[in-house]
C-alpha cells in the first residue's frame, strides 16, 4: 500500500528524520492560512500517488499566501486526476539534492539501501545511464544495519564529515528504522536536501507498506486515490484482484498467471480487454461477486477461463451458473473451466445452456471473433 507524501513524512518525523514544516489542507482558504503560518513563501504539493508530480505540474512554488491559495484552488479543481488534499510546506533553501532509498533484494534475502550523491527528479535516468553512481548496500535484517554500512552510505551520499555527516548518518539509521517498523516494501527520500547551513532535510517522502503486513500496521486505509477507477477501488475492498482497461472482453479467470496469459492471448488475436479480474485462490467460491464487477464494464463478451486443482472446477462452474441466473448478463459468456471435477463442471454448464470449451486458445479466439461481430 502506497502512502501519501504527508503520511510518509509523518512516519519519517516520528522516527527523527528532519522534514520541512508543513500543513495538510483540503481547501484553498486553509491553504492560505497555512501559507501565512509558514511565512508566505511555500510549496503547494498535491497529495496523489502517481510519480513525477513535479513534471506533471502537481507541485507549485508560491511566493505568498495569496498565491498559495490560488494555486491550491487550481490544483483542487484538477479534472484529470482526483486531488482532495494538499500539503503546504515551507520552501527549503537547499544547495544539494541527494538520493536515499531502502527496498528489498529478493536474491540476497536482504534489505537494499541505494544511495547517490546525485538526487532529484532525474534519478531514474541516472539509474539507467550511470548505475555505478548509485551505491548499493545490502543489510541482513537479522543482523540489522551495521555502523560500517551507515558510513558507506554516507560516503556514497557525498556527505561524510562534520555536522552534515552526523545528520546524514542519523537519517540513514532512522530511515532503516522506518523501513523495519512499517514493514515497508520501499522507504525513499528523493530528494534529500542539504541546506545552505549544512543541515539535512527530507524534501519528499515515499513509503510503500507491504500488503501482507497491513494487518499489523494500524492507521492506514486504502482510499479512492489509490486506484485508477471506481471499480478497482470497489474490487480491492472485496479483496478481488481487478484492473480496469477499456476494451471489449471482460476477463473472469482464476489464477494470476493464467489471467495474465489470457490477456496476452487476446492481444495476440487482435482483441481487447475490458478488465482483468482474477477470482482464483481464496475467491474461487465468489463467482457472483466477480461477475457483478465484470458486468460494470461496457464489455461485449465475458470470458471465463480456469484450470484449478484446489479451486475446483465443479464449484466454479456452479458459481458461474448461479451468477448468470441472478445477474442475467446481456453479453454472451464463454467458459473454459477445467481441473478438479471437470466432468461435473461440464455437465453443470451444459445444463445451464452454455457450450463449455476446453482449450484456452480456442476460447480466446471465439471471444475475439464474437467481439468482431462473429456468432457465438
Amino acid at each position, binding site marked *: 500500500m502506497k502512502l501519501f507524501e504527508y503520511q510518509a513524512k509523518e512516519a519519517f518525523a516520528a522516527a527523527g528524520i528532519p522534514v520541512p514544516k508543513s500543513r495538510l489542507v483540503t481547501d484553498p482558504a486553509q491553504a492560505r492560512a497555512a501559507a501565512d503560518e509558514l511565512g508566505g513563501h511555500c510549496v503547494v504539493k498535491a497529495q496523489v500517488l502517481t510519480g513525477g508530480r513535479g513534471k506533471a505540474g502537481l507541485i507549485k512554488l508560491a511566493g505568498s499566501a495569496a498565491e498559495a491559495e490560488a494555486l491550491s484552488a487550481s490544483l483542487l479543481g484538477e479534472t484529470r486526476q482526483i486531488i482532495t488534499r494538499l500539503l503546504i510546506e515551507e520552501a527549503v533553501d537547499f544547495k544539494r539534492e541527494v538520493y536515499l532509498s531502502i527496498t528489498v533484494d529478493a536474491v540476497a534475502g536482504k534489505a537494499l539501501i541505494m544511495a547517490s550523491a546525485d538526487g532529484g527528479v532525474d534519478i531514474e535516468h541516472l539509474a539507467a545511464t550511470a548505475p555505478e553512481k548509485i551505491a548499493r548496500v545490502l543489510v541482513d535484517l537479522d543482523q540489522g544495519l551495521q555502523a560500517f554500512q551507515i558510513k558507506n552510505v554516507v560516503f556514497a551520499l557525498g556527505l561524510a564529515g562534520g555536522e552534515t555527516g552526523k545528520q546524514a548518518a542519523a537519517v540513514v539509521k532512522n530511515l532503516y528504522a522506518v523501513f523495519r517498523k512499517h514493514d515497508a516494501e520501499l522507504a525513499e527520500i528523493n530528494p534529500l536536501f542539504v541546506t545552505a547551513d549544512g543541515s539535512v532535510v527530507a524534501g519528499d517522502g515515499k513509503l510503500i507498506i507491504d500488503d501482507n503486513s497491513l494487518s499489523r500496521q494500524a492507521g492506514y486505509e486504502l482510499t479512492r486515490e489509490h486506484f485508477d477507477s471506481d471499480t478497482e477501488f470497489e474490487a480491492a475492498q472485496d479483496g478481488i484482484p481487478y484492473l480496469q482497461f477499456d476494451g471489449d472482453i471482460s476477463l473472469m479467470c482464476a489464477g494470476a*498467471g493464467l*489471467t495474465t496469459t489470457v490477456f496476452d492471448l487476446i492481444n495476440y488475436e487482435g482483441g481487447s480487454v475490458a478488465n482483468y479480474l482474477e477470482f482464483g485462490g481464496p475467491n474461487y467460491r465468489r463467482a457472483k461477486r466477480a461477475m457483478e464487477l465484470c458486468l460494470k464494464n461496457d464489455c461485449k463478451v465475458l470470458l471465463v477461463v480456469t484450470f484449478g486443482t484446489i479451486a475446483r472446477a465443479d464449484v466454479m462452474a456452479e458459481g458461474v451458473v448461479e451468477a448468470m441466473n441472478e445477474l442475467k448478463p446481456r453479453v454472451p459468456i464463454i467458459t473454459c473451466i477445467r481441473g478438479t471435477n471437470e466432468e461435473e463442471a461440464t455437465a453443470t454448464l451444459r445444463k445451464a445452456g452454455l457450450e463449455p470449451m476446453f482449450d484456452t486458445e480456442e476460447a480466446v479466439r471465439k471471444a475475439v471473433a464474437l467481439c468482431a461481430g462473429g456468432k457465438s
Partner: protein
Amino acid sequence: MSVYITRENKVLIQGMTGQEGSYWTRHMRDLGTNVVFGVTPGKEGQDVDGVPVFHSIVNGIKAFEADTAMLFVPPKFTKDAVFEALDAGIKKIVTVAEGVPLQEMLQIRKAALSCGAMVLGGNTSGVISAGEAMLGMFPYWIDRVYKPGTIGVMTRSGSLTNEVTAEVVKAGFGLSTLIGVGGDQVPFTRFVEVLPLYQADPGTKAVVMVGELGGSMEEEVAEAIAAGFFTKPLVAFIGGRTAPEGKRMGHAGAIAGGGRGTAKGKVELLEKAGAGVAKRPSEVGPLLRQALGT
C-alpha cells in the same frame, strides 16, 4: 525419475492436525508420500490416520528420522515454522502459505541460504513427482496434466502451470518433477537454484519453465544456460508479454520494474541463451519435440 521428493523421503508435517493440514496429509499419503510424523504444539500423543503427532520437531526427530518438512501453517507463523525446521537440520522445506509478510520472506530466504537448505514457496501449490509422491496441495493425479515422464517443470504459477503442463502431456510427454517455487515477490528458492536438480537427474530430459513478468528469475536462468551451468534443453513460457507497464497484474511477484523484470527482456535473454521460448502455451509441446528431436 524424480527430484526433490520421492517415496524415499521422510516427511514431517508442521500443522498436521489443522483442517488444511489433516486434509492434505491424507492426499499426500494417498499419492505416495511417506509421512513420518506431524507437529502441533500441545497435541503430542495424538495421531492423524495413524501418523503420530509431536509438540515440536525436536521431539519428533528423537523418535523418527525426517529429511523433509511440509508446512500447513498460516502466513504469520510461517517464518517461525521454517526456522524451526531449519534449526532441526531439515534441508527440504515446502511452505504453501500465501501472504507471508514481505520482510519475513527476506529473513526466510536468508536463513535458508545460510543453512544450505532448499525452501520452496511461499504461495505455491507445492511439488509433485508425477505418479510417485507429492508435497503440497494437489488433490489427485489429473491425467491430462500430471502424466509421469521425463520433463521437469518449474513454475511461479498455479493455474497457468496446469495450462502449460497439459500442453506438455498433449505433445506426448510426461513430467518427472514439477516444482512450484511460488508466486511471491521473494521466492525462497529461485529457478536458477532448481536447475541443478534437473541437470543431475538422468530421468529429466528437458525442462519447461513457466515464468512471467516481474523479478529476475528468468533472466538468471538465461545466464545459467549461457554460462553452461545448465545444458539440457529448456523451453520457457513467459506470461505478461503484452502487459501494460506499471499495472500490477495479479500477485506481487509480477511487478515490472528497473532494467530487469519485463517479459520482453526475459524472452530476449532466454532466446539469446538458446532456450526455446513459447509465445503461447500450445507452442510448448512442439518446441519440446523440436528440442528433443522426437
